[in-house]
């Protein structure tokens, strides 16, 4: 062997091998290229991956996984990177398997109401592709214009319209999965109900990319409702707004969506890209949508307006056009990002509470805000009790990031304390790992990691996510 004088950087054999699988143009391995993959929508923790590969089909995914598995090299899957809990952050210098090139709509079967997509297919594109035939895909996370359905499956994503139609898991009919050893399996290949055996569809959906990599997804598509109407209600008092939410549900109405924003949130959305002209002195607003058979909607809307009036609404109105309805929703759906207009940084939280505890929990969140001296805006899916406290902070100020993280954790504690959950749709990722202890015992966590070990025995796939390591017990013991 001779060395040339102008010695090139010795190529890493791993990179060489991965490039052989996916092609030289479908791999990133230079430091400067890897930087944009050091985090996802959760930007507080960062780590650099070993490489990023962009397979074009299931066989390539399986080949990459087999290689990683054989060489005991950690790896993880990534979609659009919009996850809010850090599920796609390469904590262990993983090889990132980006699924963005697998972005096709493979088939649509209107007669049987299902569509088959690749994991990198963007959520909203599905609805857009079938809208002309009068169909849509129900789960609608706020990031739906960019997030992928593969990522939605990993996170069991929700959205504003999940109150009536359910979250992602209620719409997944079949999955093709590459297991952590590279084996490809098909669960309910034809999207049929009740596949024999344990419900692996249900288990995999929401497993945050720790049990397998989804490479093909059969989803249910729904027929557009005949009509829909949207109501906007302004309240001078948060408690009145919360009571109205309860009464709407108690009246036996199942709205398609029932959203709430508080004063700080309204300030944010009005300063953002899609202001609606909400009054700046109201304490809360409700955005309520009813859909279904047109002749049945009017009386439900009337009942909703009456409930609002009973709870001293300042103003309540029905969207007069599709354009107006669209503006109200754009204002709501870009709510998180709009916080950027009133704060240099913000942290989104995702607690869930029993609906009836809404006033109590909102009071506690206000207390957390006062104690931390950080503003907290609240945007939430009030109908199903899913709160999104947005903690506003400035990372340039020393110590404020930590304060914001602490306030976020305290908000989740406040939810857990009333019998709620620490996440309704954003997932645990790395962000809420320690908070898992708010709601699960050590034994219950172990029951879950036992299941993980069946699929992912070497822990090479997306390790360090979702479950706290039992190390804290050791710390406790040391103290004792």
């Amino acid at each position: 062997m001779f060395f040339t004088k102008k010695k090139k950087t010795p190529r890493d054999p791993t990179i060489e091998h991965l490039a052989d699988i996916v092609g030289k143009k479908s791999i990133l391995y230079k430091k400067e290229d890897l930087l944009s993959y050091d985090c996802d929508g959760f930007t507080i923790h960062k780590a650099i991956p070993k490489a990023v590969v962009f397979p074009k089909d299931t066989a390539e995914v399986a080949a990459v996984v087999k290689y990683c598995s054989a060489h005991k090299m950690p790896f993880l899957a990534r979609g659009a990177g919009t996850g809010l809990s850090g599920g796609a952050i390469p904590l262990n210098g993983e090889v990132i398997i980006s699924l963005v090139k697998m972005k096709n709509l493979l088939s649509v079967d209107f007669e049987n109401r299902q569509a088959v997509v690749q994991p990198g297919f963007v959520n909203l594109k599905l609805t857009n592709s079938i809208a002309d035939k009068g169909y849509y895909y129900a789960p609608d996370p706020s990031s739906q214009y960019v997030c992928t359905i593969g990522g939605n499956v990993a996170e069991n994503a929700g959205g504003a319209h999940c109150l009536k139609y359910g979250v992602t898991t209620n719409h997944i009919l079949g999955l093709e999965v590459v297991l952590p050893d590279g084996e490809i399996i098909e669960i309910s290949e034809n999207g049929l109900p009740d596949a024999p055996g344990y419900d692996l569809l249900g288990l995999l959906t929401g497993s945050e990319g720790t049990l397998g990599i989804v490479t093909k997804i059969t989803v249910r598509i729904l027929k557009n409702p005949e009509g829909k109407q949207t109501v906007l209600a302004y309240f001078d008092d948060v408690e009145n707004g919360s009571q109205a939410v309860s009464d709407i549900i108690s009246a036996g109405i199942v709205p398609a969506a029932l959203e709430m924003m508080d004063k700080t949130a309204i300030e944010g959305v009005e300063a953002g890209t899609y202001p609606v002209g909400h009054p700046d002195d109201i304490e809360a607003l409700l955005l309520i949508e009813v859909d279904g058979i047109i002749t049945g909607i009017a009386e439900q809307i009337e009942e909703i307006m009456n409930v609002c009036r009973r709870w001293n609404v300042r103003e309540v109105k029905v969207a007069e056009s599709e354009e107006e309805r669209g503006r109200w929703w754009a204002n709501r759906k870009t709510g998180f990002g709009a916080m950027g207009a009133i704060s240099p940084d913000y942290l989104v939280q995702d607690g869930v509470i029993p609906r009836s505890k809404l006033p109590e929990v909102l009071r506690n969140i206000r207390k957390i805000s006062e104690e931390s001296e950080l503003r907290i805006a609240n945007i939430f899916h009030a109908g199903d009790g899913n709160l999104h406290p947005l903690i506003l902070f400035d990372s340039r100020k020393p110590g404020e990031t930590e304060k914001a993280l602490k306030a976020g954790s305290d908000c989740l504690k406040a939810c857990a304390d009333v019998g709620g959950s620490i996440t309704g749709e954003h997932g645990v990722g790395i962000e809420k790992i320690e908070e898992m202890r708010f709601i699960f015992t050590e034994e219950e966590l172990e029951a879950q990691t036992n299941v993980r070990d069946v699929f992912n025995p070497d822990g090479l796939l997306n390790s360090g996510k979702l479950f706290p390591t039992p190390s804290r017990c050791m710390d406790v013991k040391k103290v004792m």
Partner: protein
Amino acid sequence: MELKEVSGGQLVLSKKYGNTGLSVVTPKSEEEIQQILCTANEEGKKISVMGRGTKRGYGGVKEEYDLVLSLANYKGIVEHTVGDMTVTARPGTTIAELQGYLKKHDQMVSIDPSWPEEATIGGVIAANESGPKRLKYGAARDLVIGLRVVYADGSVIRTGGKVVKNVAGYDMNKLFIGSMGTLGVISEITMKLRPLPKFESLVLLSIDEDRLEELKAFTVKLQGSMIEPASLELVNPALSKKLLDREEYTLLIAFEDVERAVRYQEEWVAANKPDAAILSNLSSDESREFWKGFSVIQPNALKENEPADHVQATVKISSRNIQVFDILEEVRLLKQVNKAELDAHGGLGHGVSFVILKGPEEAVTSTIASLRDFVRTKQGFTTIKHLPFELRKKIDTWHDKPSYFFLFEGIKRKVDPKNTLNHKRFIGGI
């Protein structure tokens, strides 16, 4: 073994369906369940878990276990938060008791399985039972939000929670739903509720059996329209004769909505139905009565009334939506060449069909085999959810094992390593 009385003279374990035991215990608390399981597990004893026993004929190739654990007496509502629309119930609560309780608050659990007076919520969840209204409301997996489960070693694991939206950790609820009691004993179930429909009705469309294509075309049109039925169940002529005294294919189109919306949809059906179809509308009360009758058509291991030389079986078939027509048509063809009585119905829109067979053993088993072959050609799934024990020894009641069966085995091994619970009751002998 002799027949054993379980509770109040109502529950009897007949040897006919297997899944019996040397003794029967009926715990009244979760602690008792824990103790029983813990002891049995340590001593290497095998336990068969049951509710009130309607599904004793569902799976299992063991005639006898060391112990039968009946949850029939572990019943009642633990918590009902009206405003949150959630309820927590103990497993032995029957569907009728649960619905009766919730009705006082204008709420319901949105599930309509067979035999509501006897089937327990624990059994319905463990066996993943569903009825025609699955079309609108989904199945057990769509309504269970939390469970308490006693593991074979006696530990109690909570899965999910008490809130309607929750993605913290794995969705462990799903593992236990439909697991046939092979992973743990469900000791508490939390479900999300629905408001009772403000108004309901049932439209029946019957058509001569040679004109099924017309009904199919109508169904495709309906599904492509804005109409939102709560059920769209196709009933074969034999079953239609029993239920409605009309020996024709009948489509059961249920509506649940505010009255105006229901009326509007009824009018749509009347305006768009095939000319040859006979239409009748059942009012709210009549439709509830009809569904009551419908809920008791499947065989039930607690009811034994067929002649000694006859056997009964129920086959559950999963197919695509519109394939339900093909399945019911195949049932008609099989009936022409077979001595077994064949009642069948299938859910358009959700794709779950049931075929109920009655007749001499040979006719029943050969029909099951033919049906199974047919469903395989359609890439569907078949499960024989009711069959006497002697026949279960000869016929595998579960669908073929999938390629990923090793994952099921892995899960079972982790959760119940000593095969203490419902050993060999489930697919592939799990």
